[in-house]
């Protein structure tokens, strides 16, 4: 009776040795396959069918909504193109059935907007004439690509603002599962905050779901009751923002601009935008040049911090934005050793910069983060 949905979304990722072996990760986040696959044959826009498989409802105002916007961008860019989508696909054998159904319907390209692992892989293997993409995926095929965002950079930037706006230095985080998306989020957020508040800590509560407004609200309340004064999290909706607004505290969100739910509490959001990526890949598919790509969309090219909230002081915004500009213009990375894990072990040696792959697969908490490990 445990819902499969809660295990479903984007966060699942495997750093399989097999997967890593064939890949080269470039500094821009682009991963290329070891051998070049032959491009799929061109299709006329009017005859093409593009399918999207979502983990949540498109009305979530968050992750799935953002991907749905991408589908609409594709429709606008290629008049006459046909699209189809299924919402709330469970992370179970039913996912396989739905992806197979897309193929049966004649889809030329299928985007899974979350990590469906084997359930997508098995279908892609049997449908070589269809182009597949898996968000946050890992197993490549000649017709299966992966894409995700480098959300840790804007998260670090937002963390600077959060640290500056937290009188107590106690940050709270509403987590889904202990998965890399969450680790990289908590760690980057706290590292940003510590640049202005060296004693800052971050407390996590996992609610075992990606979309459960009630549980998220309860977790937010519990964190505030524990003395936290800035909340962050990885929820698909605005539950804990409203809690922060009601209690006069602050919050940083994910996915989209949610300031209308808590105008005073709103600091910023890690907003995503897949429109350009989708339009580009569908275009390549139509013209007959598509081979799978393995991409981590950079800050400014698919992920960014949202415009600062009304209550963020100008000097705080300026301080955070200075780091953001440095990242975007100079390729600055704050993820440099020495970094210790929550148990005090040195995980990144002094002076060593974490690679994008390490950031993508981050699976341990840094010192100061509690509630995720064990």
């Amino acid at each position, binding site marked *: *009776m*445990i*819902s*499969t949905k809660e*295990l479903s979304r984007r*966060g*699942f*990722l*495997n*750093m*399989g*040795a*097999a997967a890593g072996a064939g890949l080269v990760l470039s500094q821009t986040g682009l991963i290329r396959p070891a051998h070049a696959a032959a491009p799929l044959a061109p299709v006329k826009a009017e005859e093409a069918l593009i*399918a999207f498989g979502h983990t949540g409802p498109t009305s979530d105002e968050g992750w799935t909504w953002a991907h749905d916007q991408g589908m609409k961008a594709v429709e606008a860019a290629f008049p006459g193109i046909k699209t*189809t*989508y*299924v*919402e*709330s696909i*469970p*992370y*179970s*054998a*039913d996912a396989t*059935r*739905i992806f*197979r*159904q*897309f*193929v*049966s*319907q004649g889809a030329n390209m299928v985007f899974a907007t979350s*990590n469906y*692992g*084997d359930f997508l892989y*098995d279908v892609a293997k049997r449908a070589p004439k269809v182009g597949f993409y898996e968000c946050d995926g*890992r197993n490549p095929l000649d017709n299966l690509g992966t894409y995700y965002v480098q959300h840790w950079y804007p998260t670090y930037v937002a963390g600077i603002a959060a640290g500056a706006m937290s009188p107590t230095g106690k940050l709270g985080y509403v987590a889904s*599962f202990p*998965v*890399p998306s969450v680790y990289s989020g908590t760690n980057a957020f706290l590292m940003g905050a510590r640049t202005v508040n060296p004693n800052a800590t971050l407390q996590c509560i996992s609610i075992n779901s990606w979309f459960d407004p009630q549980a998220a609200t309860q977790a937010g309340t519990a964190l505030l009751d524990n003395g936290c004064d800035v909340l962050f999290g990885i929820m698909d909706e605005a539950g804990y923002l409203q809690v922060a607004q009601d209690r006069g505290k602050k919050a940083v969100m994910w996915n989209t601009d949610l300031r209308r739910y808590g105008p005073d509490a709103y600091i910023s959001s890690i907003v995503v935008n897949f429109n350009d990526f989708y339009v580009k890949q569908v275009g390549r598919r139509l013209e007959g040049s598509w081979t799978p790509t393995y991409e981590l969309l950079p800050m400014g090219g698919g992920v960014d911090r949202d415009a600062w909230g009304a209550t963020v002081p100008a000097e705080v915004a300026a301080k955070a934005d200075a780091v953001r500009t440095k990242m975007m213009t100079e390729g600055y990375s704050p993820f440099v050793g020495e970094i210790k894990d929550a148990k005090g072990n040195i995980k990144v040696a002094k002076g060593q910069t974490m690679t994008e792959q390490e950031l993508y*697969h981050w*699976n341990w908490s840094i010192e100061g983060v509690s509630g995720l490990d064990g």
Partner: protein
Amino acid sequence: MSTWRLQRLPAASPLVSLSARLISVVLALVTAGIILAATGKNPLDLGAQVISSTFGSSFGMADLALLFTPLLYTGLAVAVGLRIGVWNIGAEGQFNLGAFAAAGVALFLPGPPALILPLMAVMGMAAGALWILIPTLARAYADVSELITTLLMNFVAALLVTYVATGPWLDPSGMALATTARLPVEVPAVWDIVHWGLPVGLILAVLLAVAFGFTRWGYEVRIGGSNPGNARYAGMPVRRHLITVMLVSGAIAGLGGMMEVAGTVHRLQGGISNNFGYIGIMVAVLARAAPLGVIFTALLMAVILNGGIILQPQGLTTQTVLAVTGLILFYAAIGDEFARYRLIRNAKPAGTR
């Protein structure tokens, strides 16, 4: 002047009940069609698409078979229990446990598939039987209703599977996919992606039908299930049969879980039971607990569930599909009741003669 009225019969004739069943399915579909039409969709188009997608392609047939297989096992599990008057609401949990045990064997015991697969099946059945053991003993020795106990065990099983899949057995090669690693062995395919779980399930249904209909044991179970007092009077070991039947019921559900994890999903994950245990109750009830009937009702449920998946790209939600399955059960219950009536015409009241 004459009036029509319903008259209750002492028993429904088999032909009438069968037609009532068919009519109830048709009525449920018609009702669903009307609802769809009201939301601006063309139910005939959707129906045609379900049929062509299900039966018109090998993809569709394979998908159907993969949905049919677990329902066959859970339906049989519940039906077996019903033969001795037991409502095994816990097929869901036993299915989970079977998958859990089978995955454990596959993950941690190296060996040739020819050895490991049968061991997985045995362990899956043992785990399913183990999961119904406490409800069985409680029912057999303390007359505690199995309805509640088997149901409660489901929650424990679901939590256990989720815990091991996201915790201790989490894919060791990676870190985040909330499942175990892919099992190193799998149930071989018979056709396309359809694995041996299907023919084994069909054989099991036939074996059970033979056991219930053509063995002394089956006769005793029938008597014991219908009237335990009568069985005791005849000196039949009612309690022993009750225990055996319940454990067999659990074992069948466990075997279903083993086939699902080793044949279809290939990894243990939370929610692997996918409500198959609960839908199995519906399958068994529609089949009137007849093992061969389960083959047909499980297939019917598979067509409906698969139809739901086919229709999702058309904007139909899983909830709608579940509503249709609920409608079928609802109409079937009404149909069963009506099969016990016949329509008669009253003559003019005699008193006015």
